[in-house]
């Protein structure tokens, strides 16, 4: 949709509104003071002609659309109903005029259309503005690529770049497509992708993601993913498609809207026909029923509820929280228990050596492990070397078994140092089974010696996140495969009272299901948080699955409902807060307009209010609801 086109029609509409409002007041004020119908010999025809000119100026498009609705047999469209209401008001006034009675109704007909158009204009404008501002919040779309062809660079649209093409990214530009650096080195700002404020260094051979900004010097990149498949496009698509997955509230609104209009129109018909059968005075009852038609469009609700969720998704994206559907915000609001998978969420996944087990052989375990790991480039291996204070024996042949560990041999002396699979491969029997996969086991000449206990560092934000959640009346539970002692230590230091240790992957799922069953009894839901690497089943099974810091991992994003792009658990309370306020505002946007509409219906049927009040209340509450939904922008 072209914005230029729309603002042109919007400005035309605003000119029409101002013009007709001025004209209207210029007619209405003298009419109310002097009564225009008594001023000329044409009686009521004089004011009628004046009001009619305003009516046509403000309403020609509404009347045209109403006419088209009749042709298409869609009598419950809003243009048609507004047309009937206002033409009805005019007809009643003409009828009264012919019969020599006072001609009220011309002003009402005009006022209804003027306010209706003001409401329409406001809605269009607010919608457009929201659409634009939400896409600005998600500002990672690359607008061009500098394609290298025949030794020159040509500016092209990123869609036209193919796998294997080379593109140049100048300093200050956004990387348009995912690829590998083939020339140059620079610093990259990846803040909009993962929230990381420190730039990262990128050199030849490094993989780079679209959406990051090149800071220092030009890079030449060989593209390895097409635009639609690149990181930036995928994130944008995720946010765009989030609005398709509608929340329960939105689905309820669609259903409600379907019955609301027919019911109100039906009531209007009854009001216009039944009471006058007994009491007479058809004119008065028809007049009252016209107010019903004025409030028969549920627009205020239908527009402001999706807008609330849409703005919320945008605000989340701005905070590097990707929400894959409005429905997940609703579910997050309803979460009573957060389940944290320890590694990668509460702890950083960076390693530190916590000693050895069994403790009486600690010196021997560390000495042997150091021999095996002395040339290691693996972070755990390096941590072991750092932790061991003694001398490291030389002269061993070190064989690195990828994914398993290291085998060190000197003559017939053999040291095995690695994970449980390495031990099994060599037929080593080891007791004290330890399900924590991070630990490093050591065997010497076929004998199991013990293990180096590896733990990962607790994230600094974990503790405050947990305590904030507690204040929000949400329970936190930690799941881990680690031994009881380690689990207890981590749980205590982050302030989680409930934890489950020594869990095998399949236990995680069944424990999660137990918690879910329990929460469902009280109508609440369970959210599972993981890093998405080996907890995909739990992420998918939970009512809401949140993965952390998983940008670039398609599988993790696929498995989760919400993605914290930044590896910052501190964003979790914010996400929960946004969800809570969004749902509350959405509910307000249903209840308040509905209450006002019902109020208007009651007062009009009693003849206390007229069409002036009806249109004023209806448009006013629509504007109020939209402004209310924009409050979501302010959530911090």
């Amino acid at each position: 949709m072209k914005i230029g086109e729309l603002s042109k029609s919007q400005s035309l509409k605003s000119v029409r509104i101002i013009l007709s409002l001025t004209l209207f007041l210029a007619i209405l004020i003298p009419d109310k003071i002097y009564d225009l119908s008594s001023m000329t010999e044409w009686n009521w025809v004089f004011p009628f002609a004046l009001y009619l000119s305003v009516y046509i100026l403000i309403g020609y498009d509404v009347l045209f659309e109403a006419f088209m609705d009749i042709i298409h047999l869609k009598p419950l469209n809003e243009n048609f109903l507004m047309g009937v209401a206002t033409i009805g008001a005019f007809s009643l006034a003409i009828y009264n005029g012919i019969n020599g009675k006072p001609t009220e109704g011309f002003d009402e007909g005009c006022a209804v259309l003027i306010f209706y158009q003001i409401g329409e204009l406001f809605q269009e404008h607010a919608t457009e503005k929201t659409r634009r501002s939400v896409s600005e919040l998600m500002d990672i779309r690359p607008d061009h690529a500098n394609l290298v062809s025949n030794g020159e660079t040509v500016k092209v649209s990123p869609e036209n770049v193919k796998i294997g093409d080379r593109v140049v990214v100048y300093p200050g530009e956004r990387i348009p497509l995912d690829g590998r650096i083939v020339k140059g080195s620079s610093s990259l700002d990846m803040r909009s992708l993962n929230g990381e404020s420190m730039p990262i260094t990128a050199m030849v051979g490094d993989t780079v993601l679209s959406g990051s900004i090149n800071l220092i010097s030009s890079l030449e990149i060989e593209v390895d993913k097409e635009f639609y498949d690149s990181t930036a496009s995928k994130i944008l698509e995720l946010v765009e498609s989030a609005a398709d997955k509608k929340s329960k509230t939105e689905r309820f609104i669609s259903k409600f809207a379907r019955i609301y209009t027919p019911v109100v129109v039906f009531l209007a018909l009854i009001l216009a026909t039944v009471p006058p059968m007994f009491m007479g005075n058809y004119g008065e009852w028809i007049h009252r029923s016209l107010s019903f038609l004025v409030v028969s469009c549920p627009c205020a609700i239908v527009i402001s509820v999706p807008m609330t969720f849409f703005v919320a998704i945008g605000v989340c994206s701005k905070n590097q929280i990707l929400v894959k559907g409005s429905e997940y915000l609703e579910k997050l609001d309803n979460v009573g228990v957060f389940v944290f998978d320890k590694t990668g969420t509460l702890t950083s996944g960076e390693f530190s050596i916590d000693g050895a087990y069994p403790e009486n052989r600690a010196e021997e375990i560390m000495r042997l492990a150091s021999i095996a790991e002395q040339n290691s480039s693996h972070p755990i291996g390096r941590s072991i070397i750092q932790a061991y204070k003694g001398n490291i024996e030389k002269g061993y042949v070190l064989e690195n078994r990828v994914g398993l560990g290291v085998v060190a041999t000197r003559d017939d002396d053999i040291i095995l140092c690695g994970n449980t699979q390495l031990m099994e491969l060599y037929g080593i029997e080891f007791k004290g089974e330890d399900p924590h996969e991070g630990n490093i086991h050591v065997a010497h000449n076929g004998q199991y010696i013990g293990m180096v206990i590896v733990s990962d560092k607790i994230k600094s934000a974990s503790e405050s996140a947990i305590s904030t959640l507690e204040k929000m009346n949400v329970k936190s539970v930690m799941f881990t495969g680690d031994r009881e002692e380690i689990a207890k230590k981590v749980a205590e230091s982050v302030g989680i009272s409930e934890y489950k240790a020594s869990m095998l992957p399949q236990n995680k799922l069944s424990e999660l299901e137990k918690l879910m069953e329990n929460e469902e009894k009280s109508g609440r839901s369970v959210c599972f948080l993981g890093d998405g690497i080996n907890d995909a089943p739990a992420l998918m099974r939970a009512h809401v699955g949140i993965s952390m810091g998983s940008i670039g991992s398609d599988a993790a994003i696929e498995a989760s409902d919400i993605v914290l792009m930044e590896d910052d658990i501190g964003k979790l309370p914010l996400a929960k807060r946004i969800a809570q306020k969004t749902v509350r505002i959405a509910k307000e946007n249903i209840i308040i307009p509905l209450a006002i509409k019902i109020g208007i219906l009651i007062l009009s049927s009693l003849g206390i209010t007229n069409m002036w009040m009806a249109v004023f209340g209806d448009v006013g509450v629509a504007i109020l609801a939209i402004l209310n939904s924009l409050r979501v922008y302010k959530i911090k």
Partner: protein
Amino acid sequence: MKKIYKLENLGCANCAAKMETGIKKLKGVTDASISFMTSRLTIEADEKDMDDIIDNAQQIIKKIERKCRIVK
């Protein structure tokens, strides 16, 4: 299969809801959704029926909002 289309000149939220209901009822459509805020139409249906469904969906949309069009 799932297909996503942009809608041009979708001006009224209530109409979007009506279109969605209408399209959902079309033969062969497993699910359909229109997001007013993003002007997106998502249709899930069998691939062989897709072309017919899109034509019918366009008819429904046009009846509800005259200027609204599916961008192909």
